[in-house]
């Protein structure tokens, strides 16, 4: 009795939103081989677009690269720009003033809040709980408004610059941001309670996709995926970059090791981020100009190399920048957390049923425009038909 149905699930990684777009990329395909309802083998096929960005970064000046690297991912654009800017600042041994560091932390934590709300909404939508999806998105709009007040744009905040940030805030904006954060905190607590108590969610998520701690470090998984399995890795705690050496915060870790633990880690991190934002807004130092004069920044960079890492909403993001003394870098290497989380995790689907595969994949938080289509190959009748991942999750094949 062999397998009668083979399910191929194509998934795309990283949304490069940007000016220079090289040719079309291949989507990520998880070829899931299933015997009846149980998954027996998974193959990973990838091909994605941000590789073109590494070659592109070798041809543009250091300052143009800030805007290019900010467009590797639409959801995490502040953290990409921040990591690149910090790697360049290490090359030059520049230390920005404390006010700029606090504002950077504010922008990055706002992004973490809206990214976590987004993935929880998508998890609810994959399970079929559309009402919760709509409600979370409505409250996420308030966070986007907060980003607009701070940086000038809802999604792509071109906020980071070598030596500081590009805009400052005054008292009026600060009060508006504090009011928005109070509202979001109330709503986030309510949604977290729904995730804890609602049967629709707990029955689908608990004990699905269990990963043991030793498997996490050997397979190199990062971010909330690792923190949901009791491994306390967080680049904010490790490097203490920007203002994280002065702002108090906790690293959230859970012991249950399944998909439910990973989503709860994200809700608790949302509440932690709101606390960090409020602390940063109330304790903004005024020790120096947060906005450097962009016309007076140096154009040539000394030779050397540097390695910076940052805690993106999905895990640890690293940038390696090397320069040989010209106006353009010699090598820029970007390693995004989804790269490790998605490619190295094909072992974790084995033994679960097909309807669990989208749930497990969503709990790793692939970068958004991913979960698009799944192709079902019925080998008995030789017929291929496309179903959306949501129909797959609701068992409609």
């Amino acid at each position, binding site marked *: 009795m062999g397998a009668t149905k083979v399910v191929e699930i194509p998934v795309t990684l990283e949304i490069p939103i940007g*000016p220079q777009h090289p040719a079309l990329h291949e989507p990520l395909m998880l070829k899931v081989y299933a015997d009846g309802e149980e998954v027996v083998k998974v193959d990973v096929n990838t091909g994605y677009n941000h590789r073109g960005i590494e070659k592109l970064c070798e041809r543009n000046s250091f300052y143009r690269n800030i805007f290019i690297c900010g467009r590797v991912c639409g959801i995490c654009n502040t953290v990409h720009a921040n990591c690149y800017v910090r790697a360049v600042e290490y090359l030059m041994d520049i230390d920005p003033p404390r006010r700029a560091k606090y504002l950077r932390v504010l922008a990055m934590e706002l992004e973490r809040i809206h990214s976590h709300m987004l993935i929880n909404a998508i998890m609810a939508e994959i399970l079929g709980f559309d009402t919760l999806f709509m*409600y979370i998105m409505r409250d996420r709009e308030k966070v986007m408004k907060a980003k607009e007040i701070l940086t000038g744009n809802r999604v792509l905040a071109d906020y980071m610059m070598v030596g500081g940030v590009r805009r400052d805030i005054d008292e009026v904006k600060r009060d508006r941001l504090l009011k928005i954060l109070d509202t979001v905190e109330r709503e986030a607590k*309510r949604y977290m309670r729904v995730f804890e108590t609602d049967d629709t969610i707990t029955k689908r998520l608990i004990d699905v996709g269990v990963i043991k701690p030793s498997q996490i470090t050997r397979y190199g998984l990062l971010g909330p995926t690792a923190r949901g399995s009791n491994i306390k890795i967080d680049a904010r705690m490790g490097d203490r970059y920007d203002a994280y050496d002065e702002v108090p915060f906790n690293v959230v870790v859970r012991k249950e090791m399944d998909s439910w633990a990973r989503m709860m880690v994200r809700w608790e991190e949302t509440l932690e981020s709101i606390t960090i934002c409020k602390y940063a807004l109330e304790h903004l130092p005024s020790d120096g100009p947060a906005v450097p004069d962009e016309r007076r920044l140096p154009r040539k960079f000394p030779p050397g190399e540097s390695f910076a890492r940052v805690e993106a909403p999905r895990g640890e993001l690293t940038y390696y920048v090397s320069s040989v003394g010209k106006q353009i870098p010699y090598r820029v290497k970007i390693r995004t957390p989804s790269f490790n989380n998605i490619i190295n995790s094909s072992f974790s689907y084995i033994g679960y049923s097909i309807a669990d595969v989208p749930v497990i994949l969503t709990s790793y938080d692939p970068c958004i425009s991913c979960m698009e289509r799944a192709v079902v190959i019925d080998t008995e009748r030789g017929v291929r038909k496309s179903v959306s991942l949501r129909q797959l999750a609701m068992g409609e094949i």
Partner: protein
Amino acid sequence: MGGPAILKEVLQRFFSKPVTIQYPFEHVEVEKDLRGRHYTDLNKCIGCGLCALECPADAIKMEKLPEDKKPKRNPRGLYPVIDYGLCVFCYRCVTVCPVNAFIVTNYYHLASPKKPDSRDLTLKTLSGEGGGGM
């Protein structure tokens, strides 16, 4: 049981106005300093071309001014034209200009069937019309 918790809100929302803003027919409130359409003020521009060099999207081209209008501070007679189809509104040109010659607005209704660029808005500043926000 989480069911009744959301259920109460669902029933309340059933009878109240939807949250969706019907965009083209209703007005959306945006911030005053949203990064919207920007163009050059030719009363200040010196034609150095830094904005065109620094644009990450290569959306700015320097073009020659019409023959009768060549102010003294602009010896090469060039002015920047921004192609809004390529522009990513990062405002690098605005911050890097040595004489602060860009006028910024928060106008964002830029979808149009033909390619928009800043030529008309920029040339109007020289004759004294236009200028300021939209």
